[in-house]
């Protein structure tokens, strides 16, 4: 087509997408008595409306916390997620008993979240691309990285490398899991090494940082991705704001460590509202996935018909 016609065809086309592209608030089927208050606009919301909008406030766009499985389901092609390594569970190798015994914290976290540790990983398709996807759940011991989280993340990278998949990780974390001591710190090196090997194999890795992402997780696999996005309002850093404040002995500037300020400082690529995330990540994969890796078979999220 002549280039002038091509430009003409594109006239009037929308280049940007609204931040609140969620479904119209429903007028029926809202469960009775399920209300939620938005901490940002103070509005009172029907839980059903919030859920339809991927837990984003339909009035002001505030992003509520999401559990790991819901984050993954909201991101990948429907019905393609298949968990891997669910059988890994945390031990208490140091028998850490200072403060609350680690064993007790783990037990409670398993009960309240229904998860076996803070990271959930698996095969999936995203925009038709074969990926290994993962999410960290802040409810599980602050999504801290111990041996199991480190192992799941490293295996996710290894699997992607073996099966020629991209990697997409939705990251939240308080940092390394101190109850596992140096075993936990070394997971930073392990996951970073695994991310490096994926990069060396020419496969893309996209990370999405959600609120909050701190410490040893930020300073390892979370930021070794090819493209880094963050959710609106996410707080991201290495040292926590209180420690920074104590160090510099004055109050912190407004917006310090916020996703928006990280874009300004050149540390991440963009702040992407949850409702746009699937399209944005799948577009990145369109550009970066090696052509031969995105076969029709792999796109189902399964490998050779079995999981």
């Amino acid at each position, binding site marked *: 087509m002549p280039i002038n016609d091509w430009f003409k065809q594109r006239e009037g086309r929308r280049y940007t997408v609204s931040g609140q592209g969620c479904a119209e608030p429903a007028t029926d089927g809202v469960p009775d008595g399920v209300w939620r208050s938005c901490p940002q606009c103070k509005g009172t919301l029907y839980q059903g409306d919030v859920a339809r909008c991927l837990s984003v406030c339909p009035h002001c766009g505030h992003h509520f916390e999401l559990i790991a499985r819901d984050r993954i389901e909201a991101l990948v092609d429907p019905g393609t997620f298949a968990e891997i390594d669910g059988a890994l569970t945390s031990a208490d190798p140091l028998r850490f008993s200072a403060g609350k015994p680690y064993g007790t914290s783990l037990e409670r976290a398993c009960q309240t979240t229904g998860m076996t540790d803070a990271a959930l990983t698996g095969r999936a398709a995203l925009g038709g691309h074969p990926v290994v996807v993962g999410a960290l759940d802040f409810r599980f011991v602050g999504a801290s990285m111990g041996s199991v989280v480190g192992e799941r993340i490293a295996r996710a990278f290894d699997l992607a490398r073996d099966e020629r998949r991209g990697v997409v990780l939705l990251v939240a974390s308080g940092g390394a899991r101190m109850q596992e001591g140096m075993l936990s710190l070394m997971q*930073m090196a392990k996951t970073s090494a695994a991310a490096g090997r994926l990069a060396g194999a020419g496969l893309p890795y996209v990370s999405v940082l959600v609120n909050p992402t701190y410490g040893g997780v930020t300073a390892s696999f979370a930021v070794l991705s090819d493209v880094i996005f963050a959710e609106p309002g996410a707080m991201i850093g290495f040292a926590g704001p209180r420690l920074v404040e104590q160090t510099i002995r004055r109050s912190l500037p407004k917006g310090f460590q916020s996703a928006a300020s990280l874009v300004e400082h050149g540390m991440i690529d963009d702040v992407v509202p949850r409702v746009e995330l699937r399209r944005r990540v799948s577009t990145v994969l369109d550009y970066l996935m090696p052509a031969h890796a995105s076969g029709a078979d792999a796109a189902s999220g399964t490998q050779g018909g079995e999981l």
Partner: protein
Amino acid sequence: MARFVMEFERPLAELEEKLIALKALDIATTPELAAEIADLEREVERLRVTLYSALSPWEKVQVSRHPERPKTDDYVRGLFDDVVELRGDRAHADDQSMFTALATLAGRRVMVIGHNKGHSTKENVARNFGSPHPEGFRKAERAMRLAGRFGLPVVTFLDTAGASPGLEDEERGQAWAIARCLETLAGLPVPVVVAGIGEGGSGGALAIGFGDRMLMLEHSYYSVISPEMCAVILHKDAARAPESAAALSLTAADLLRLGIIDEVVPEPLGGAHREPDTVIAEVGLRIAAALDALAGDDRADLVERRYQRLRAIGVYNEAG
């Protein structure tokens, strides 16, 4: 010069002072003093042995922070020839808390990378007390890449309380700089020998703190978090650091048991600062032996083996 006295050394220091005072008296006029001095000397020696032969984890942390403990630049001066210091990260600044240099250890050409605490307040201010800024880690990463390209083995010295937690450190991407070091170090096609000589504080230590052979001085520590900060998180009370230090399994002996390091280098009674030259020479011998053991290895094997070593770290259950 008066030695810096650590908290747990105080009873010993008091006895030592008393001994010095007694010795200053005129023995000729009071001959019964001689016996008293001999008794006190025996007592001092007995206390020294009991104090230092069973240091608690928290006491080891104090020894590792002793201001007179040999620093990275003491090891560099004591062990290496033809030192060409490399400075700057080529993006922002030269961070003196991170030392990088081309250097020769008894004929072995290597790249030295080390956290660099100072010997005086003035030096410590210039070196940010050994806590690197992002530009320090970027300098280290630059040195790693250079070593990798030209086949120079890497020798690192760990001695930091941790990465600098300032406002600008955050704004300039402290986490990004550390993460990039981890990725680069993991993939380096040259031998990497790590020596823990003092403090091994968290991610700031880890950035240059893993490799093919890892040794640690007996009273150095390596930890996911400082005992003080751990105590604040658990008990809102930094004074409970001794408990945290014990719980974190941060001593060289603990880490040998956990399979994270390969060897513990013994220190003289009282700590490395009592006989720095002996300790520096012993560390040099061990590094040279490690370099020689790794020298013939195929580069691809080296990287693969380092990866498998990292992959094997972690304790978990796997059902079914």
